């Protein structure tokens, strides 16, 4: 594939990744107060681990031949400790009256989500620009 095609693949890979990040942020926000999940434990924050992903590194001698995309390496559960709040009347309060709450900072999740949305937009715009470039190149024919 030409380097421009590889670049479109790179941008497209980012669309998938950022969409996943948004979905995870939404899930985190929705469960910010879930003190008891199916396993009896409070909801644990999900985190998306990203890694770069070389697309078509056909000829590494040509510095610009391949493009660098991105992929989700894993979606892990954040192991930071649960928040604790003193609320003895809560059905899930422990013996000392504390409730364990999900380790989620809702404002931070919102920021992450907005960042992912912005990155999504930017990569979408990139795809448009590259496709126009290819069209222009083909116009050299007439």
């Amino acid at each position, binding site marked *: 594939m030409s*380097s421009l095609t590889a*670049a479109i693949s790179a941008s497209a890979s980012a669309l998938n990744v950022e969409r996943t990040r948004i979905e995870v942020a939404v899930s985190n926000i929705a469960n910010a107060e879930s003190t008891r999940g199916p396993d009896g434990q409070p909801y644990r924050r999900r985190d998306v681990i990203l890694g*770069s992903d070389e697309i078509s590194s056909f000829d590494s001698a040509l510095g610009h031949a391949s493009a*660098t995309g*991105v992929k989700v390496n894993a979606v892990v559960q954040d192991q930071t400790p649960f928040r604790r709040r003193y609320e003895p009347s809560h059905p899930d309060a422990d013996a000392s009256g504390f409730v364990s709450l999900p380790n989620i900072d809702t404002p931070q999740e919102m920021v992450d989500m907005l960042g992912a949305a*912005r*990155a999504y937009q930017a990569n979408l715009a990139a795809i448009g620009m*590259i496709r126009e*470039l290819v069209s222009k190149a083909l116009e*050299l024919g007439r």
Partner: protein
Amino acid sequence: MNEISDSAVIAALRRQMTVAVARQVAAAGNLANVDTPGFKAREVTFDETLARQAGTPAATRPGHIGTSAANSGINMREVDSPARRDGNTVQLDRELLTMGKAAGDFAAAQTALAAKFRLVRYAINEGR
């Protein structure tokens, strides 16, 4: 007095397009990795004198799969940019700007090249 030959002009315009493409690809890669921890943004450097010395890249001869980066004057290097907390140095707006500029350069070269071809063919066909 230097006479800039037609084929030198065509070669120069072609180089401009190739560099613009390289910049687009690098910027697209950076944009895709704007959230990848530890990712260092990259940019294209172009040495015009090196490229001119190398002459027209013989990318079209069979068996020669394009010029090596070394003699085409096109190289990549890491951008000297402050890193965020996760080690990422990509700046979204900067990359979008780079893409916009590269797209413009490409379009300009393409327009000039297309016009050049039309002109030469007009000369060949003597207006017919």
